[in-house]
């Protein structure tokens, strides 16, 4: 794609600088229902997200159109939108970092594996699940693969590229017992190397997760020693991390104002952002073109840094941390990739045995509504298992866990050693929380 014409048009209308973020994506996906391909999808798309500076202010425009008139249209929209912008911050388009770490994470081998093969693996998992237990009544399997090529360039000559791909199987079983109680269990398995898929392991995990929930009931209300499964821990901690955004600090909507250097969590908790880690979520630059860096956000309970984009780094007079990412076709905001919770020494089983009697929460629902991202107050529908005599016991469902996120992280007694990279890009571990209020019957 030739972007020169955009920069020429920008000059003509008097834009001071222009940034173009383009993404080329392609995907293939299918879903299986009762052994047959129920739906099959392919896609091939392009999008351009542009921003420019006019009279010192930003204007924004995005489009999926790619014809002769597009460059002129885009720069004119930017000019019009910038001219009513009143933001007090000085608009800045990044001239570039000194050095960018290079690493190839794209793996094009997935294209060499025939689609029939990917369908066959799905059918194999479906059969295995149905055979595993008569209580398994329905199975849903979805597969998707895709790649994305991002190009970030600007009128200062910056030109950065990021090329990634992934393959995902979503496997879900529905089981019903003799009392008519229905439960679902699923596993999302992802990689960019097809051989990594271990169908037997996926099937076993889904069978266990589904059947073990049957007959689940609410437990008695009260305060429990609680273990949050790593997936739940990751969901909750991502809300904590959003409070470390310098934007939230600047706008006074964070509980972490003036807390850098202070102990804000249990000394068991260390959280790092590792954008340069060698996995599928590797990023060498953020969506403003700033080179990323690995860093500790929380070190043994002490808050080490806020996360900065260009605008907020300037406001606080610090270096940007490479934490500006776009969501959808909108403007970028302070965010993070590749978060790692540092694992502890004890296994989940050791922690259960230490607890004796408590509760193990394996899933929470309704985070978008039940979590107040600012205050950290939450009350969430949850399910899991009782911890009885030091072991995982009977299933529990339709309970709520409640608390305050900022209090909760102070009450982490142990971080388990069960680190796993989740599809959200979070390498998480299960957390043992001293005490949590549970509401059941």
């Amino acid at each position, binding site marked *: 794609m030739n972007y020169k014409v955009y920069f020429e048009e920008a000059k003509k209308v008097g834009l001071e600088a222009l940034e173009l973020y383009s993404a080329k994506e392609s995907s293939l996906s299918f879903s299986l*229902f009762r052994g*047959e*391909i*129920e*739906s*099959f*999808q*392919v*896609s*091939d*798309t392009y999008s351009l997200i542009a921003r420019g500076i006019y009279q010192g202010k*930003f*204007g*924004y*425009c*995005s*489009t*999926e*159109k*790619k014809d002769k008139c597009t460059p002129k249209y885009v720069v004119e*929209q930017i000019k*019009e*939108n910038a001219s*009513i*912008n*009143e*933001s*007090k911050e000085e608009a800045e388009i990044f001239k570039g970092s000194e050095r960018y770490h290079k690493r190839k994470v794209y793996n094009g081998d997935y294209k060499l594996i025939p689609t029939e093969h990917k369908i066959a693996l799905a059918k194999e998992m479906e059969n295995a699940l149905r055979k595993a237990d008569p209580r398994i009544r*329905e199975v849903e399997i979805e597969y998707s693969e895709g790649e994305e090529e991002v190009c970030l360039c600007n009128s200062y000559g910056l030109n950065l590229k990021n090329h990634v791909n992934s393959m995902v199987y979503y496997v879900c079983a*529905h089981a019903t017992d003799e009392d008519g109680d*229905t*439960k*679902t269990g699923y596993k999302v398995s992802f990689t960019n190397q097809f051989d990594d898929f271990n169908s037997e392991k996926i099937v076993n995990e889904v069978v266990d997760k589904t059947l073990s929930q049957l007959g689940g009931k*609410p437990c008695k*209300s009260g305060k429990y020693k609680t273990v949050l499964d790593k997936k739940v821990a990751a969901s909750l901690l991502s809300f904590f991390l959003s409070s470390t955004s310098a934007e939230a600090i600047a*706008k*006074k*909507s964070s509980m972490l104002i003036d807390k850098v250097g202070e102990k804000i969590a249990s000394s068991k908790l260390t959280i790092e952002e590792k954008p340069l880690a060698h996995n599928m979520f590797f990023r060498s630059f953020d969506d403003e073109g700033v080179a990323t860096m690995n860093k500790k956000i929380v070190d043994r309970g002490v808050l080490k840094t806020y996360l900065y984009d260009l605008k907020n780094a300037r406001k606080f007079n610090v270096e940007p941390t490479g934490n500006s990412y776009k969501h959808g076709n909108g403007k970028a905001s302070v965010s993070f990739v590749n978060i790692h919770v540092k694992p502890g020494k004890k296994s989940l089983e050791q922690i259960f045995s230490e607890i004796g009697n408590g509760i193990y929460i394996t899933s929470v*629902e*309704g985070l*978008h*509504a*039940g979590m*107040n991202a*600012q*205050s950290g*107050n939450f*009350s*969430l*529908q949850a399910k899991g298992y009782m911890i009885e005599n030091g072991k995982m016991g009977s299933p529990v*469902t*339709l*309970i*709520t866990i*409640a*608390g*305050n996120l900022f209090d909760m992280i102070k009450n982490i007694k142990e971080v388990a050693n069960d680190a796993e990279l989740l599809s959200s890009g979070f390498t998480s571990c299960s957390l043992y929380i001293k005490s949590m*209020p549970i*509401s059941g*019957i």
Partner: protein
Amino acid sequence: MITKNLARIVLNECLSTGCEFAEIFLEQTESEGITVDNQLVETVTSNTIYGAGIRLIKNLQSVYGYTNDISKKGLMALASSLKKSFDGNQEKECAPIHKVRIKNRHAPKVPYSSVSKEEKVALLKKVAQAMLIDERIVRTIVSMNNETQTVQIFNSNGKEVTDQRIRGRMHMQTVAKDENGIETSHEGPGAQKGMEFFLDENDLVSEAKEVAQVALTMLGAKECPSGKMPVVIGNGFGGVIFHEACGHSLEASSVSKDLSVFSHKQGTQIASNIVSAVDDGTIPGGWGSGNVDDEGNKCKRNLLIKNGILNSYMVDPFNGKRMGASETGSSRRESYRYEPTSRMTNTFILPGKSTVEEMIKATPYGLYAKSLGGGSVNPATGEFNFAVNEAYMIEDGKITYPVKGATLIGSGKDVLMNIDMVGSDLKRAQGMCGAASGSIPVDVGQPTIRVKEITVGGRGGTR
């Protein structure tokens, strides 16, 4: 966007390996967004969504693809890639294409383009200013988005439909803070109307003050106690309970596969006999309304529940085939990037006879959940949860004090049976509903209702 002639060529390419139905959905959506953050214009955006989706169906198998390249070359390349999923011989030709004339029942009176961005900014600032009722209001964000979606749909039965959907929505959000903590509050009025909705039909200044007041009230609220108790659920957005706990489980996408708690329940009682509910895509100017759905079928008013008896599901043609039911004008998608499926439009419980006062008075101890936040449901089990944004305790038949942090959880089939009073104050509210075919505008709604017993989660301990 494309000619009848080109559509026929592409559809015939799709049919050439034996599929029984093919469809092209073309879309161009232009949107504009202005955000005023802490009283200053912070962001102004223009966005264009542009592309086509092609769908092929044979028996119970569907194949879908999408692209931004809607030239003959782009569409033919997509069609020939999709047709490889079938390996038969062409069984039918695309029928001669006839344009179906539709009447636009939701056309704006004051088009967004007739009002300058400066005038829109002035309105947003007036609303933002109105929220500053107390020094504990530390942040205000007011934004307005409008979009014009133009769609053109062709299918192999010879149908051509074009439609334009023009929507606008305002978000008013405030953050209140004192030494005890932070609370936020939000309202988001919207409609399939023009600027008249914001300029003439709504008192935005009063609504903005109310938003700020709720955040302040919640600052002083105690933690909500937990346990099972009667809950009076406020009108308007309170209808999200019905949307989550029942609506999703009545969509053919899960019903037709026996994956819903309400599969095979038509004609049986699923709610208490004072409950009737509709999904009505025909309301003029309604946020979730349409002239036609995203397969070009006329939007309808569907009576879902009549006096507690399940009357109708929401059905799209594809899932309708699986369950032997006719379509109900319910096939929707966020954009050309999504294969359509059965979704809600404007879904609400119909008014009854009780008043809010009567419901409070009839409750010795319980929760008045005046305004709800979002929630979610597992359609297989019917288990739902949602957050309460504004709530008060009811003691001895009187509202006593505000409480925060409450969550309502339960299972859809239980809560519907447990509705024991339905008010007369029906109100609808706007939301975005996310599911398989993307995020689409829907109205939820209800009069104030009382549920005999719901599990309330909160941090205030048990009674």
